[in-house]
């Protein structure tokens, strides 16, 4: 028996937490928003979601095989990337476009940097940015929500503000937009679950949403401090981005102070792009820009070394 003792460095006990569990919990928290999306826009959304997931997972497995690395699909991270990418796509986007986005997200956005934990940019958002640049028409062709008269295309509220859309409509998702971003109440349910169970902290969503709200209130109209801030918070991908994209551990700062700065930057860039930029929506690019700033933020927000000021 003496030959069989296991020797390893301390500690010898661990929490039950695992990276895989975290990924699956985040995935679970996104399910309500997905169901809402499919209900609101119809079955085509489901095919987009499934295509996003399957192509992301296959790409991950293929590249890990090619790299000679262990295939780690069980960790759920590729699935989550595919899911998040699908959530920020229009419901009527051709499935081959979705697949291209997933391949880009995993191959270039994640694996090219060295795989899980090493990527600079949020892979799902990198995928979306790529699709928006490559096929802008597909990426801006919107489907009307269930119950609307004209079922083909219309602008998202951000393109053409307030065409008969109430705050309540925004809240329950009765508007056109991307699959996973429209139903705010479903997103908030998932976000609440993540906050309560400690999988995300409040810092990034709070400073992101607050900054975007204040910025659009201050500069969102012809006169100062009269912008429709609540409209800006509830529309576009702000809620999805603030709770589920910007909080991605890998691409956000490590400390709470850093997270507040990161969220502030995301909110600021979102506001600038939405109000003064060429695109109607700014969440995706705002987060990607702040992803790039993350190492810098980490450098200047190191924790205080014990025994020093």
């Amino acid at each position, binding site marked *: 028996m003496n030959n069989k003792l296991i020797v390893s460095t301390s500690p*010898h*006990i*661990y*929490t039950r937490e695992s990276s895989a569990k975290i990924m699956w919990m985040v995935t679970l928290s996104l399910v309500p928003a997905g169901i809402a999306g499919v209900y609101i826009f119809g079955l085509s959304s489901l095919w987009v979601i499934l295509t996003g997931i399957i192509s992301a997972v296959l790409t991950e497995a293929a590249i890990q095989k090619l790299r000679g690395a262990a295939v780690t699909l069980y960790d759920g991270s590729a699935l989550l990337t595919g899911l998040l990418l699908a959530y920020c796509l229009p419901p009527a986007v051709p499935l081959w476009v979705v697949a291209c986005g997933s391949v880009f997200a995993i191959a270039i956005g994640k694996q090219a940097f060295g795989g*899980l934990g090493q990527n600079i940019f949020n892979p799902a958002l990198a995928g979306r940015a790529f699709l928006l640049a490559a096929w802008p028409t597909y990426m801006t062709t919107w489907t009307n929500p269930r119950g609307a008269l004209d079922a083909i295309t219309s602008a998202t509220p951000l393109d053409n503000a307030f065409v008969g859309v109430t705050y309540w409509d925004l809240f329950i998702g009765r508007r056109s937009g991307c699959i996973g971003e429209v139903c705010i109440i479903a997103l908030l349910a998932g976000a609440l679950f993540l906050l309560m169970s400690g999988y995300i902290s409040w810092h990034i969503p709070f400073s992101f949403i607050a900054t975007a709200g204040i910025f659009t209130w201050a500069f969102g109209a012809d006169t100062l401090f009269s912008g429709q801030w609540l409209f800006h918070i509830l529309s576009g991908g702000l809620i999805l981005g603030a709770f589920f994209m910007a909080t991605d551990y890998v691409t956000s*700062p490590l400390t709470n102070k850093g997270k507040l700065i990161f969220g502030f930057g995301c909110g600021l860039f979102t506001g600038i792009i939405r109000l003064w930029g060429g695109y109607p929506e700014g969440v995706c690019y705002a987060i990607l820009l702040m992803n790039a700033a993350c190492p810098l933020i980490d450098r200047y927000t190191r924790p*205080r*070394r014990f025994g020093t000021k």
Partner: protein
Amino acid sequence: MGKTRLSPPDFKERTRALPIKAMGAVPEVVLPLLQHTGAPCGPEVAAGDNVKAGTLIARSKEYVSAPIHSSVSGSVKAIEEKPHPILGRYKAIVIASDGRDEQDSSIQDRKDTASLSADEIRKIIRDCGIVGLGGAAFPTHIKLKPPKEKPIDTFILNAAECEPFLTADHRLMLEKPERIIEGMLIAMKVLGVKRAIIAIEENKPDAIEVMKKIVDNDSIKVVSLKSFYPQGAEKQLIKTILRREVPPGGLPFDVGCVVNNVATCFAIYEAVYKNKPLYERVITVSGKIVKNPGNILVRVGTKVGDIIEFCGGLSEEAAKVIVGGPMMGIAQYTLEVPVIKGTSGIIVFGKSQVKAPLSQACIRCGRCIEVCPMGLNPSAIAQAIEKGRFDLAEEYNVLDCVECGICSYVCPGNRDIVGLVKLAKQKLKNKERK
């Protein structure tokens, strides 16, 4: 921003109510020549010599060292390399017991303790080989002699016992509280300190009550501490109690205090009042598969295998045997390894309780930063070391790490952060030597 306080499940319920049991002398003890922080001892005996329990068998002329005494009566069998719980293998004196278990004649009650000067007491403590029994085994006579330019205003009795599973200090407080206090008063006298704080984690309410009954006044206070890990780490404890932070690379002296552990104060009592060298101590033997776990008074040098047998053996095959607690203890490769002065417990895990570190990718979740008591970034340190960037790890203050293990404990990737830190410290030490 506030630190996250985390308490791993404490697993103390199996042994906290069990009175200390004396195991007595065993047929053979193995006494390594290095059991403390400092210079190793040289043997003072040769094979064939007869010794008694408490007979001096090894010492060093160096100041930072502590002599070693036989823990049984019998004869020296050999002086050879043997398994060592921390160092892998080390030269040790092997003593075969004659079964009579006689004490050395030098062990006698001392009556005139009140008239002893500070220097005399320090010499007794040194001659009795007392070291810190909390784990680091730093020679106590040095801890009790702060440099003149550093005035000490507070003595802290460390009774936190924050390591899961361990209950030896807890039991000692319930069963020998007066002696612990006597030992503490001696240490305070040596230091010339008037104020003392007895720091106990709130998960030991009975011990708090017992200690309060004996002393609780303006100068000696019993405080109940929140239970979290690593509350009992020296620097953390000083911060919790006095709101003072020991500067990087510094010692408790630097912030005007001295910290000693419960069992150490008990050993000081035995040394000063009985002239009894440190050759036995209380350890906790626990783990799901130990048939009769308990708090056992064992002779230093007793082999782990013998102790497990004394505790009724195991209900299934051992997968991991840890000397110390599960957070900082060391996994052993053989049951032939002996208990040394600094050993606080033996924890045995069966196959189902062992989770080997998988060392998956870091997902930058930041949990390790939130819990690190030293304000370090374990994630960045570990990644630097993995890339062989020991210089970068040093810049990230890897040398401040106290190896408490809470970062690896919370890590969802089960990353072996402590193992990497130990490697880096070794590399940096070697570099300095060159």
